[in-house]
């Protein structure tokens, strides 16, 4: 039987996505054996992220600086903005290095049943970004769920009177975590097959 402190660490790690109690226990054991090296490094890395973590005031990405690395990158095409539901979608899309524009994170999807209304999302901020000018295309990359697609329709309609081309991924993004496992080919296909919203 391990001490309360070790149990606490194991139970905190067990809650991480993809881990669970058994893997957590194994990770704790590994860390305990390397308290001067690996545990020290992990602690420092986590503290640094915790201190510096900010939500990008422009796009809603989570990074250690504001604006985020993507918004600050002048090589990226500011005329094209890809709208996603969550930061995890942004990261997955960006890891594939297929989209060369900027992003906008909504912070969720419209859902009457879950009580998520338009004002709970960053739709106003998106309209503001477009109104400020310099944006030619909005790519709606919502998930392929009912809520995701409703949100896409909603945003397309709100953008209707603004001088911007609105396109949508042909079938939406595959739902949730699946995105992480998508190969680049599938993502590239989804991006290529974007179509105007009408």
């Amino acid at each position: 039987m391990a001490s309360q402190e070790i149990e606490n660490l194991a139970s905190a790690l067990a809650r991480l996505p993809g881990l669970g109690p058994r893997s957590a226990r194994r990770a704790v054991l590994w860390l305990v054996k390397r308290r001067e090296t690996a545990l020290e490094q992990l602690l420092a890395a986590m503290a640094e992220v915790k201190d510096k973590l900010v939500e990008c005031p422009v796009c809603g990405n989570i990074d250690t600086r504001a604006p985020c690395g993507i918004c600050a990158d002048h090589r990226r095409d500011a005329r094209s903005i890809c709208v996603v539901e969550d930061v995890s979608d942004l990261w997955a899309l960006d890891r594939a290095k297929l989209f060369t524009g900027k992003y906008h994170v909504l912070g969720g999807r419209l859902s009457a049943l879950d009580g998520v209304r338009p004002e709970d999302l960053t739709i106003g901020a998106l309209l503001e970004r477009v109104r400020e000018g310099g944006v030619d295309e909005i790519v709606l990359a919502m998930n392929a769920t009912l809520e995701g697609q409703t949100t896409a329709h909603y945003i397309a309609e709100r953008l209707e009177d603004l001088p911007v081309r609105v396109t949508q991924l042909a079938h939406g993004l595959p739902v949730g975590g699946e995105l992480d496992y998508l190969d680049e080919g599938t993502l590239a296909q989804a991006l290529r097959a974007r179509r105007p919203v009408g």
Partner: protein
Amino acid sequence: MALDLISLSDFRNHAHSELSGTAHFNLLTGENGAGKTNVLEALSLLAPGRGLRRAPLAELARGEGSGGFAIGASLRDGSGEPVRLGTFVRADRPNRRLVQVNGAEASAASLAEWLAIGWLTPAMDRLFTDSAGGRRRFVDRLALALEPAHARHAARYEAALRERNRLLADDAPPDPVWLDGVERQLAEHGSALAQARGRTIAAIARALAGFPDEPFARPALAHAAGGPTGESDLAAALRDSRRRDRQAGRTLVGPHRDDLDVVMAGKGAPATICSTGEQKAMLIAITLAHAELAARGRPGLLLLDEVAAHLDPLRREALFERLRAGGAQVWLTGTEPAPFAAIAGEAAMWTVEGGTVTRR
């Protein structure tokens, strides 16, 4: 083409039952609760879906068994090697249905490539008199067998409908742009849903039109649509009924209000006022007509649970004759053999008792 070498292990009340030497007609007799319907249910699980009871997986494993179950059968088509179909649940993963085709793991959906299975159970006896919801589910099951995309449209439509009803139920007036977004999806999936139901009903009606009125009651079918079936018309109808729907607290137009109208062709009487036996005869006619449409070159299986019960001898004869002429292998159940005397010479027969099956 037929199923043979059927085995049930730890399925419902069957610890281990085997049925071999099958024929075109296959008859299971035994007392109430013996385990006859359970055999048909096992066969129905050789198709995608939840089987003829629509039961949750957890219910299927035998109470005193290991916690898992297995169903297997060989599909013979005369010449070549038989195809072995199997579906099972392992005790350590009770919520996952596994499928094997010739010993290799396969998807449940792939079972549909081998077999077309249709069924009729006593639970469906009140189909014409019960709620429209039961008839919609019935039509959806028939449509799904003909058009696999039907399930997705149905699920999407249901989800969109719940969203719209919630938006309308809000104290504050609903955001019209948000409603637009939800209604677009209702229109897209609702029109697909309604049209597939319409096509299915029309195809069965066409098949039935060629049958005589006597001695077997012939039903005339019609799709009573709960709203416009075209996408843009349905979208417009939804938009127009927003105020009314908000007062009602729910959506009053759309395929969730669809119904199946059935009239007995000879008499011109609505099915609801026909006798129990006439209703049964019409249900059988629909089931047979659909089975032929759904087969499309695949071997067919018809599971008819206690169909003889409500039929008089004349109509029973007519039923057997029609089944004899059909391509599908037929599985029948009854509490006693007497009503099946006409097929006794050609049928493979088993007695079922307390979850064991014995060849007669």
